[in-house]
């Protein structure tokens, strides 16, 4: 089963995944119309970064099993999708009790007005792993928007082997102390860290 996994090393804090997610879940599905919708399109993925940007992590729903949000939902709004490993929120059934918000270890369930059901109530809104797109053999919007590969959508074993390939570089570097193995991006992040530590970047 395919899933979305992030690589924090590759996240450039560009926020395109957030934009793409918001547009994907807007009423019009189109950038130019979405910015004019009365109910603001909402992203369900969040870039968590420290203020210097040296650490930047895309944070989204993990579709846990068992899911703490489902376990705590009294109205049955949160459910696992049939035939897909995805936890969905039914914005119409949600009573707004916020149990899910409190129980989610990642804080990725938000409460906003639904654009689908114009009740005016604040309901739980969360990542649906773009089930409409993936069931049509496409990738989630956040993954499509990510140009560095920080977000990938594939079999979990493929993610694991990718990480092992990355660890080889690190392990090799540790063993050989070979300075020519330059992950240019990690050098940049290192520079940011040093700037941070000598007060080069003011963070309020």
């Amino acid at each position, binding site marked *: 089963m395919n899933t979305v996994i992030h690589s924090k090393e590759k996240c450039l804090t560009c926020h*395109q995944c957030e934009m*793409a997610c*918001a547009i994907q879940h807007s009423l019009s599905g189109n950038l*130019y119309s979405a*910015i004019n919708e009365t109910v603001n*399109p909402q992203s369900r993925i969040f870039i968590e970064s420290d203020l210097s940007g040296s650490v930047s992590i895309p944070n989204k729903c993990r579709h846990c099993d068992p899911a703490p949000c489902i376990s705590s939902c009294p109205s049955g709004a949160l459910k696992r999708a049939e035939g897909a490993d995805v936890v969905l929120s039914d914005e119409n059934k949600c009573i707004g009790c916020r149990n899910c918000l409190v129980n989610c270890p990642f804080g990725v369930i938000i409460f906003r007005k639904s654009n689908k059901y114009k009740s005016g109530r604040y309901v739980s809104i969360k990542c649906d792993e773009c089930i409409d797109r993936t069931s049509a053999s496409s990738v989630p919007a956040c993954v499509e*928007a990510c140009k560095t590969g920080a977000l990938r959508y594939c079999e979990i074993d493929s993610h694991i082997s990718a990480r092992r390939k990355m660890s080889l570089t690190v392990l090799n570097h540790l063993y050989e102390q070979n300075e020519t193995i330059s992950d240019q991006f990690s050098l940049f992040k290192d520079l940011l860290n040093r700037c941070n530590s000598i007060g080069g970047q003011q963070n309020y």
Partner: protein
Amino acid sequence: MHHLKSSCNATVVMLEKAEKDNVQTVWDRYQQQLPQCNYGLLGICCRNCNMGPCRIDPFGEGPQKGICGANADIIVARNLLINVATGAAAHSDHGRDIIQTFQIATAENSDYKIRDENKLRSLAQECGIPAEGLPIKKVASDLASMLFHDFGRQTPGGFPFLKRLPHQRLEIWEKLSLTPRGIDREIVESIHRTHIGVDNDPASLLLQGIRTALADGWAGSMIATEISDILFGTPMPKKAMANLGVLKEEMVNIIVHGHEPVLSEMIVEAANDKKLIKLALSKGAKGINVCGMCCTGNEILMRHGVSIAGNFLQQELAIITGVVEAMVVDVQCIFPSLGNLAKCYHTKFISTSAKAHFPQAIHIELDEEHAYQTACYIVESAVNNFTNRKKSAVFIPPEAMEANVGFSVEAIASALGGSFDPLIEVIKAGQIRGIAAVVGCNNPKVKHDYSHIQLIKKLIKNDVLVVTTGCNAIACAKAGLLSVGAADIAGQGLKTVCNQTGIPPVLHMGSCVDISRILSVAAAMARALDCDISDLPLAAAAPEWMSQKAVSIAAYVLGSGIFTVLGTIPPVLGSKEVTTLLCNKIEELLGAKLAVEVDPDISASLMISHIENKRIALLGETVAKEDSECMSLS
């Protein structure tokens, strides 16, 4: 799948070859960029100063101001101004290069000649320079000096060509402080205003953009057009061939690409050199075949009927045919990918401008004092390359369409019997409803050539005469719209006029700087009818635009009072204020506005209904002509 990328069959077929040859094209790189940055698309990313980069959250939750305090409206307007300035700079620098060549032409033994003495004398007279009975080189020298001054003017109203405009338009500019001062000054001030902490009012930024563009359209570009006519000949109607099929397997093929005829004219001349032709024959070729691409291609097409191989998006495909011995370029619209691509074939990619260096290019700088010599050297190196062709890599698509080209202002007047009066009469009578200028680039964001052709077909069907330049004109040439036979698909009124005068329903007026020809015609018509340009039944469109020059053109066409439809979305929608200003409020100030419409059918309807409304107001018609395909007038 490639047929979705282009409506030009030669292009589709060459994309198949590109895939087979495993080479990358602009379309591949466009796909890789998708989805493009949403902040960029909306124009709400600012990278001007080093406090940034900054972005505005269009959904209202994240930052609403950049670090300096600029909101989305300011950021969008500033970005637009930079684009106008860049486009104006490109056109005006081209104009500057033409005048420098003009000055060289006045020297003894120059390779550059003055070919249209009549135009020189009449232009000099128009600019207040004595020409009666004086030696031609003296007149030329004085005219060159005067026009050179346009670049360095500091106060408004000095450009000689402003006298072509109706007083109503000049009064509007005066009232809004839009009368351009100097070509270089406007560009410098525009860039100054985008410096952090200078101009932070959207309307102010946009008006400076209009003023800068006017210094391009009515000076920079116009100088390029008029002096190029004097140097290289004023275009007169002629036939020529268009599309990749103009490349010939049995010839040494040289493509000239870029913009300034300073280069292309010399290459055409050098290719006629007897020694070089002999050399080509000795290599087993049947001769030397020079073909143009983009605007420099348009320049030699208009003046000499030199074949044109294609427009902007086809530049890589020309190399991919495997029969191009050399692609010789100067400035503007040249892909930096060409050098690398040429290395996959035997093609020599030769850059010639000190201003324009490219990766993997062979740089042979065109020395204007010894231009013919340099050009011969370039042509010779192409001829010597003929034997390096890889036979297995050769494929030329057969498409080559005959087109009627060469419609300068002088040529149109001549075709109409000596003046524009007959045209004004048929417009008044309603046989021709109005005139549409359809211009501009290609863009992989839309299907190549599709919007250009669909829009124009609908316009001529509705008896709107179309004038065209640039890559649009090349698209029309390839699609057969520049043939007299194209009148068959025009409306009855336009068809009749075409059949009577022998002109096609779509008139190729030249390169992008030659949009200044269109401005001159519009101004002349307005003066003849004693009205403003904005009162005329005119509309403009750039259905597939992409360059910064197009932004400058849209700004000066708008500033001159002509309703303009853009077919690719400009990066302004992140600002409600700028969008409203350009598409609505600016009409109160300038008598014209912009519209953004991606569907060419709807664009045509917008232009047609605009033209009909202008007819009602100007000519006192009580009811607009209804067309069943038009959307209702609103």
